[in-house]
């Protein structure tokens, strides 16, 4: 994975496969130079055995292949740059994946195109509630696809001018968030 936005796309796919109705993605930058990524869902969750093996690249619930690299790749990336990864889950209670990265570390992954990633997930999963939340030391931004759909009413998210303005909006917010990161 080239950047954090691709990891987000990937981890969110796990939530979608777990039949989550609400998926929230949080990026939090604190004073300690740690960037924390939290993906939290209300999907089916995992039992103790599955949760214990989720960091194992030779474990997958898929039947099309025997390996599952999504979480292991994120774990590797986090540990490479002085961070860590934890997964908490219980059957019926959803799953939370939490990864942290030291932004001053030379191996810290670039953010990538997070606005495009959020926009794409919302447009291609109109039946899910996707919440993106960014917190910096001084400000907070929120994109909630449920609120967006409510504001739009009968106009679909896939409408051309809606898609374009949504992407512009996200890009503007995100450049403000990025402006708050010390590197």
């Amino acid at each position, binding site marked *: 994975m080239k950047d954090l936005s691709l990891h987000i796309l990937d981890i969110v796919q796990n939530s979608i496969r777990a039949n989550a109705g609400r998926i929230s993605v949080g990026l939090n930058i604190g004073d300690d130079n740690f960037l924390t990524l939290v993906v939290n869902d209300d999907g089916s969750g995992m039992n103790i055995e599955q949760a214990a093996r989720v960091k194992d690249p030779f474990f997958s619930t898929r039947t099309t292949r025997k390996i599952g690299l999504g979480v292991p790749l994120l774990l590797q990336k986090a540990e490479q740059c002085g961070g860590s990864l934890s997964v908490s889950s219980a059957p019926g209670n959803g799953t939370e994946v939490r990864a942290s990265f030291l932004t001053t570390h030379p191996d810290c992954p670039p953010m990538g195109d997070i606005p495009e990633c959020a926009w*794409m997930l919302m447009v*291609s999963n109109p039946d899910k509630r996707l919440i993106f939340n960014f917190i910096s030391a001084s400000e907070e931004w929120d994109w909630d696809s449920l609120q967006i759909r409510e504001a739009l009413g009968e106009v679909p998210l896939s409408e051309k001018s809606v898609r374009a303005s949504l992407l512009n909006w996200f890009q503007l917010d995100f450049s403000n968030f990025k402006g708050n990161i010390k590197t």
Partner: protein
Amino acid sequence: MTKVKTLADLKRLREELQDKIHVRESGDHPESIVQVKVAMATCGIASGAKDVMVFFMEELEKRGIDSVVTQTGCMGYCYAEPTIEVTLPGHAPLVFGFVDKRKADEIIEKYIKNGELVDGIIPITYQSINESQQEGQI
């Protein structure tokens, strides 16, 4: 056009649009339009499926092709990512492998527009490693 920076702006945009748009009926009948599914599991994403998906979303609209582009999971063709599945109305789905932007352009121009087959189709008889192993055990 309203510049959208908040939810309130979005509501204004909705009012501007309300009169102009007609609700697309094709949305209720996905089998009557071109369907493109982009495989977006770890393998696909790592190979650049995101750019391919954005390309299809933008280009099909620009070229005036009534279509729906969605994400799907891993189809077991990890060696050939990014892979896409194209379903033309009235046709069986076809899976294409190693789809970069150039290949995507070729698929739109030749297959989607004219029904002409292009290189890179993954045959339906292809067996993933799991499938061929299972068969060996029987």
